[in-house]
């Protein structure tokens, strides 16, 4: 499946070939008006912040309107119908070649990964089920790929959560992604409030277990209620880059 732009995708993993099944390229989509399109994240940020749940839409021919190219057609013809289908459902499609979607800030990338598009690729090695060698495996710029410790161990795909969060929030702060509607945020908070309610309601439960569940859900609710809404409240002047995995 040809990509909208296939330049500058390689050489970011530090491994020659990945022992994994090849996968399909993707573009990122977002459902901005769905409550599930936003979540509160804090890793890598100065505090709880609403971030858009950008998700990959895999360009697999025969799936959701992506089709096999006919002779002479340009690459984008393969997924034009898919884009229309997604837009009809309320999704916003972000193509990797869009200037605004380039990941250029070092804070938005894992260490050592060069600036470029949000989609990256590494060539695959032959694996036991016999897939061809050298076929691309696509992943996010913020994901780092590595082989398992033994030839049969599964490959590893580790997301630099902090960099991924910072990039998504920065896209909203910069106006490339519209800030969330107030009622969308309100719906998400209401969902969480129901979780607190269900955790605290059952009197049959062991008191300690109930208290722990209420604490967890309440902490999430508090984070949501206090979270910064990017694009509407100013971004802190400087974010602190934390170690991956930090809370």
């Amino acid at each position, binding site marked *: 499946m040809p990509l909208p732009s296939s330049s500058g995708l390689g050489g970011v993993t530090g491994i020659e070939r990945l022992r994994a099944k090849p996968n399909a390229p993707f573009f990122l989509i977002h459902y901005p008006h769905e409550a599930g399109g936003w*979540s509160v994240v804090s890793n890598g940020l100065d505090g709880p912040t609403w971030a858009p749940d950008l998700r*990959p839409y*895999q360009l697999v021919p025969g799936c959701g*309107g992506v*089709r096999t190219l006919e002779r002479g057609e340009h690459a984008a013809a393969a997924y034009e119908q898919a884009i229309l289908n997604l837009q009809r459902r309320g999704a916003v499609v972000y193509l990797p070649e869009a200037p605004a979607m380039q990941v250029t800030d070092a804070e938005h990338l894992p260490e050592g990964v060069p600036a470029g598009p949000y989609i990256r690729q590494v060539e695959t090695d032959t694996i036991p089920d016999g897939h061809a060698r050298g076929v691309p495996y696509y*992943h996010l710029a913020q994901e780092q790929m590595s082989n398992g410790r033994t030839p049969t161990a599964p490959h590893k795909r580790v997301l630099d959560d902090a960099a991924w969060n910072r990039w998504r929030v920065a896209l909203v702060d910069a106006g490339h992604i519209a800030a969330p509607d107030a009622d969308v945020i309100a719906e998400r908070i209401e969902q969480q409030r129901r979780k607190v309610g*269900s955790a*605290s309601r059952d009197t049959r*439960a062991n008191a300690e277990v109930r208290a722990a569940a209420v604490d967890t859900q309440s902490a999430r609710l508090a984070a949501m209620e206090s979270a910064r809404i990017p694009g509407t409240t100013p971004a802190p002047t400087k974010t602190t880059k934390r170690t991956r995995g930090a809370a």
Partner: protein
Amino acid sequence: MATLNAPIRHADSESVLGQSFDYLGLAVLQQLTERFDVLTGPMATFLGDLAGSGSDTLRIRNATGYGYAGAFTAMATETQAITASSITAAYDSFTVSRNGIAYESTFQRDALASDGITIDALAQSIPEAWASLLRSKVCTVGAAFSTNKADAAATLDVDDMINLRAGFEETAGFDLSVHGNPFVMLHPVQISHLRSSIRSETALQMPDAFDAYQRIQSATGLRFRFLDMDVYGSADVSLSGGDYYGFASVRGGIGFVVASTANIAVPTGVDAVRVPEFGLLITKSADGSQAYNRVDANAWLGVAAASSTVAPQFLMQSNAT
């Protein structure tokens, strides 16, 4: 030449007269692989055949505003004119693509091999590969459902499943007697997260918790019922950006179309096997000059989601860690 001194010992004779290992005749164990066929469940509904249509896209129409959705208006007077109602119509597009798989084996291997992995045996295994292809495409399509009923920032829990069940029930027009039990397709790790959540779920203490806990298995394809939703697991459920993209719908929410291969002409002498209902054509050929056999399989298959106005659809996007 080896001299075998008396008494003739196995250790001395093995290298010249024996062999250092023996294979169990013709038995080749298949290595671990997911064998879940989504056609056994409600997550892939056959919608049609494009053969002979002249198109690679099948459109399924839907409409509303009549029948049970028709609304009478209370008239204000004896003579007030009735305004004719509109109906709303739409369609979903299902596009087939060509998918291929092939194997080759030299004449020399066929002559010498004793393992039974012949070109014919590989050809017979191709419908199973088709089942994997369909499963993979169904998971790709499900990952694009718009409304998330889980929480992308947290691992899957009981509340998400309750939220999902409520999502179905609160969708106007959802009717168990029409749609049947909803299905939920989760990654096995999401199922593990759900099991962990049950352990500390305040509303499910012993013995309810133990009962629920016991029924939840994370094997691929294995179904269990939770809140009257049929839950399946597959490692094909997408993982990206640190999240799993499980999904849920009802029968008819995801459909597939094929192009029947019954009408494809292959030259005389080419050994062809057709599975028209899968859009599958398997051809076998040989190259005498380079001394190998080859089997090629082409499958014309397309998977897409029906409109969520026809079948309720929900995403179960939850955090992977």
